[in-house]
Every structure is written in C-alpha cells, then in structure tokens.
C-alpha cells in the first residue's frame, strides 16, 4: 500500500508540503496537490502547524493594514496638502 502511494507520489516530504501550503494561499490548488496535502496532514502535525502559521501571518498583515486605515489620528499633513495644491496650480490644470 505505502509503496503504491509513493509511486503515485501521494506521499510527499515536509519540504514539498510547505511549498504547496504557501501556494494554497494564492489561489485554488490543482487536484493532485490538494490530495497530497490531505494525505500529508494525516501524518504530519508540523505541517498542520505551518499551515496555521501562514494563515496567521496573512491575517496579521491585514491587521496592521486595517489598524492604519482606521486610525483617524493619522492625517495627511498640512504641509503635504499645501505642497500638492501649489504643485498642481503651478502646472495650470
């Protein structure tokens, strides 16, 4: 049985699994890759944790972004506003 799975390349290393996990964040995986990952997760807690780490990483980055977007104390400085207006005036639009 195990031999057959290896022949089908359904059994993959953690190194290969980690690449597939990263790709899974960027779009739907091809069917064989999904199967490989499913099998791998059955036998590997480390890669399950790695998968979780990448999802937390991705959520956290969006958290940083949202904190800035929603922070109304962050404002375009008066200097910058004046500079932008005078730059546009000088170009006579």
């Amino acid at each position, binding site marked *: 049985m195990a031999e057959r799975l290896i022949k089908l390349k359904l059994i993959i290393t953690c190194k290969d699994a980690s690449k597939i996990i990263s790709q899974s964040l960027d779009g739907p995986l091809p069917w064989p890759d999904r199967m490989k990952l499913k099998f791998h997760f059955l036998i590997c807690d480390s890669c399950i944790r790695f998968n979780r780490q990448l999802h937390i990483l991705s959520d956290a980055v969006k958290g940083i972004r949202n904190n800035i*977007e929603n922070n109304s104390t962050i404002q375009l400085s008066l200097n910058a506003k004046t500079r932008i207006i005078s730059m546009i005036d000088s170009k006579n639009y």
Partner: protein
Amino acid sequence: MTPNVNDWLNEHGDYLYRFALARLRDPHEAEDAVQETMLAAIKGNNFEGDSSARTWLTGILKHKIIDLYRKKIHEQPLSDFTDLDASDSSMDDFFDKSGHWLDKPQTLDMPDNALEQKQFLSVLSDCVDKLPARLATVFLMRDLHETDNEIICNELQATATNVWVMLYRARMGLRKCLEMNWLKD
C-alpha cells in the same frame, strides 16, 4: 465638471493618505502616492458621477501604489533576485536532506488582548523590515495590497514560478522570525 483639488484633498486626503500609508509603510511615499493620484485625477478628469469621488480616487491610488511597489523592486540590486530556485539550497536552513523540518514549526497564535496584539503586529512589522527588500515588497504586494499573482507577474515581468518562490521564501522567513521574536520565553 470643474475638478477641485482643494475639495478632494479636504474630503478624501486623509483617507487616501492612510490607505497609501497602510500599504507602502513610508510616510513620504504615501504622500507621493496621494500627490500622483491628484495629478492623475485632474489630468484624466474622467470622473463619472455614478461612483463616489472617493471610490474613483481610491481606484487611481491603487494603481499608483503598484507603480511605487514596482519602482521599489527595480531599485533593488539584482543579486536579490538571482537565487530564485526554491528547489534546493535556498531552503537548507529549514529542512534536512530528506525533506524533514530541521526545527518543527511551533504553535503560533494571534493574541486576543489588544495590547499583546499590538506588540505582535509590531514584531511582525520588524520582521518584514528584516527581509531582503525584494522579497518584502513582493510579499506586501500580495498579502497586504492583495494584488493578484497574475498582476504581480506582469508588473515585475517575472514568471509565475518566480513569484511564488519569492512569496514562499518571504513567508518562510517571516514565520521563522515570528517564532524567534514572539515565542521566545
């Protein structure tokens, strides 16, 4: 319609600035992006009344942000770009010869309470700064600005494989950095 930069800046300037700052992480670049947006808005003057001015301006800003990302990437020395093969040696730090984790990934959780969460995000921010600049920019383009991989490939004139390898390496480095700097006892 007479475009009025004054009104746009007063009504949407802060919003656009925060939008840009959240993605570019540099106040000067964020100001530049807003300035470029205003210029393009006034030059193009193709605002159609069926969307709000804010939506329209944000749409322009999104493109300006991608322009700035692209510029950042092309400013980096090429050496950063060369070693793009995920197949092997570049991952020797993480896996042994038979492909097993050298250090097993640890449980990493986003803290619940606000103060710790803030600290977590600040550790992550430092980790992003420690990445090679190209990797950091590609990572921010993808995970922060949520640019499609296809657009990233076009902008960088890189193959899909190159882009996913860069993302893979960036993520590998970041989660390791978080483990080392956040989980330390």
